[in-house]
């Protein structure tokens, strides 16, 4: 390979570095400008400030030299906290439900031979491929038609419809690399189906289940489109809250919220990676 450490390789390297700049520059720009003190034109640097973060948490009301109140721009910190709480509640229940159902399905398809098996393994991919807007309005019409009040519960139900499939895919991938001999041994030694499942299969599957659950949690926390259609009044989630803020126009506080979200997701992703590398050791 080294003999072709040529101009071609150099071009390719430069292109790739440009690619990674393209991916990360927007996130870096948000982070940097969330500390910009210019309240009028937020993309013109005017000095460092933490005011937007302080305002976000409702910590400080500062009156500057001109007698203007600069820190409090978020209409309601309470709304932001409520949205975050809603998102966490939804993600918690969604993750639990879809992890249980998705794992059960993956086990059924990997360990049993039955006639509808091919149908199930194909059908389970469709919720992932269905455009979220179609699923969103379908659920909206469905809930309204059967007279189901839109609430946090409808959002949880909606998220699970496609997250079951995600968990299924991740757990199934884990199962594919597992040796069925252990379960056969357990069955031969007289353990019941359930006992084998609980004591032999599930412990081996654990990394896959954790991975699927983590993925479900992240996607649920970030879902905008389906939530947008089936959220009732009072069940605004974090992405929905930011979406409506962005629609009303750019504001310095949004930079601060965005930076905190970027930080949180980087930490979660790094944690997930660290867990995975520990598991494989």
């Amino acid at each position, binding site marked *: 390979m080294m003999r072709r450490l040529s101009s071609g390789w150099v071009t390719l390297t430069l292109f790739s570095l440009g690619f990674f700049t393209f*991916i990360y520059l927007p996130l870096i720009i948000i982070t940097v400008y969330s500390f910009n003190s210019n309240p009028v034109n937020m993309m013109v640097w005017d000095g460092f400030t933490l005011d937007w973060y302080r305002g976000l948490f409702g910590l400080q009301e500062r009156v500057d030299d001109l007698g203007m109140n600069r820190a409090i721009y978020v209409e309601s910190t309470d709304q932001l906290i409520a949205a975050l709480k809603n998102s966490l509640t939804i993600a918690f229940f969604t993750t639990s439900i879809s992890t249980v159902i998705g794992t059960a399905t993956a086990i059924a398809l990997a360990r049993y031979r039955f006639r509808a098996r091919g149908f199930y393994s194909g059908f389970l991919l469709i919720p992932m491929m*269905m455009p979220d807007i179609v699923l969103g309005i379908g659920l909206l019409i469905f809930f309204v038609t059967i007279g189901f009040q839109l609430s946090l519960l409808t959002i949880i139900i909606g998220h699970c419809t496609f997250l079951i499939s995600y968990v299924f895919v991740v757990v199934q991938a884990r199962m594919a690399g597992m040796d069925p001999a252990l379960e056969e041994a357990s069955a031969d030694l007289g353990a019941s189906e359930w006992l084998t499942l609980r004591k032999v299969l599930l412990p081996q599957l654990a990394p896959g289940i954790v991975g699927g659950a983590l993925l479900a949690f992240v996607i649920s926390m970030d879902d*905008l489109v389906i939530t947008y259609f089936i959220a009732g009044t009072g069940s605004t989630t974090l992405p929905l809250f930011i979406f409506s803020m*962005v629609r009303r126009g750019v504001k310095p506080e949004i930079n601060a919220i965005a930076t905190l979200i970027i930080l949180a997701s980087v930490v979660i992703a790094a944690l997930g990676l660290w867990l995975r590398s520990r598991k494989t050791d």
Partner: protein
Amino acid sequence: MTRKGRQNTVLAALLAPVTLYLGVFFLCPLLIIALFSFLEPGLYGGVVWNFYHWNYGRIFGWADGLIEVYEPIYLQILGRSLAFATFTVLASLLLCYPVAFWVSRLPEKWRASFLFLVTLPFFTSLIVRLYAWLLILKPSGVVNNALMSLGLTSAPIDILYTPFAVVLGMVYIMIPFMFLPVYAAVDNLDRSLVEASLDLGANRVQTFIKVIVPQTLPGIVGGSMIVFIPSVGNFVVPDILGGAKGLMIGNLVEQQFLSARNWPFGSALSMIIMAVVLTVLLVFVTRARKSAVGMS
């Protein structure tokens, strides 16, 4: 109970939840969209339970001449959505393919880190990533500030609220979905075939077209499909970056449901999105099956 009988009980217990759940909360919603698309819209939202095909007539060119009017704009917007999605696929492929190639040639210890770097944005909020582009593209944004301070333009140029901005935004959020399948294919590339082709006198372009592309085609097709499908029905990206010129079919659907309150018409529009998606999936599955038969 026999062993077989016990196994069947366990299997039924494992499959019952998913069957019930997806039957009620996935299939029913899809069927109800199909049903609603053939119902008459009520005067003040809601529906009248009459068979009504004008919802489709408004889109495809027949009108009752009284209330429902055929508007070519709907087909135009559908065409635009297909075009935007196609451009998104092409642009993300052109970006990801060379980089995937580059990453696959890196020393092993670096590869995992770069793969992590590609997937990391996926874990960051979608709306935050689009908001970042809003800051970059807006008239007083990063790009225009840079252009003006370099003296390249005296007044801000319109980048935001153009088709370009929409495609750029979609490419940006779709990159991980294109990258991973393409990377998997490039990584599996049989390098001895490439060497053989070069040794036998084919030049680099010929080798690329005749050897590398066919071998990595499954990844290219898979990535393209995974990017195309969510792009066609997207409404968040055009909502934030698109403006009137960047309106896509997803925005039409959203308007029908949340402002115009014409649910049957919105359902008919979503049926079109679904039809496009199913066509793409069907083409993909039959192709995949064919090539699997060809391989064995």
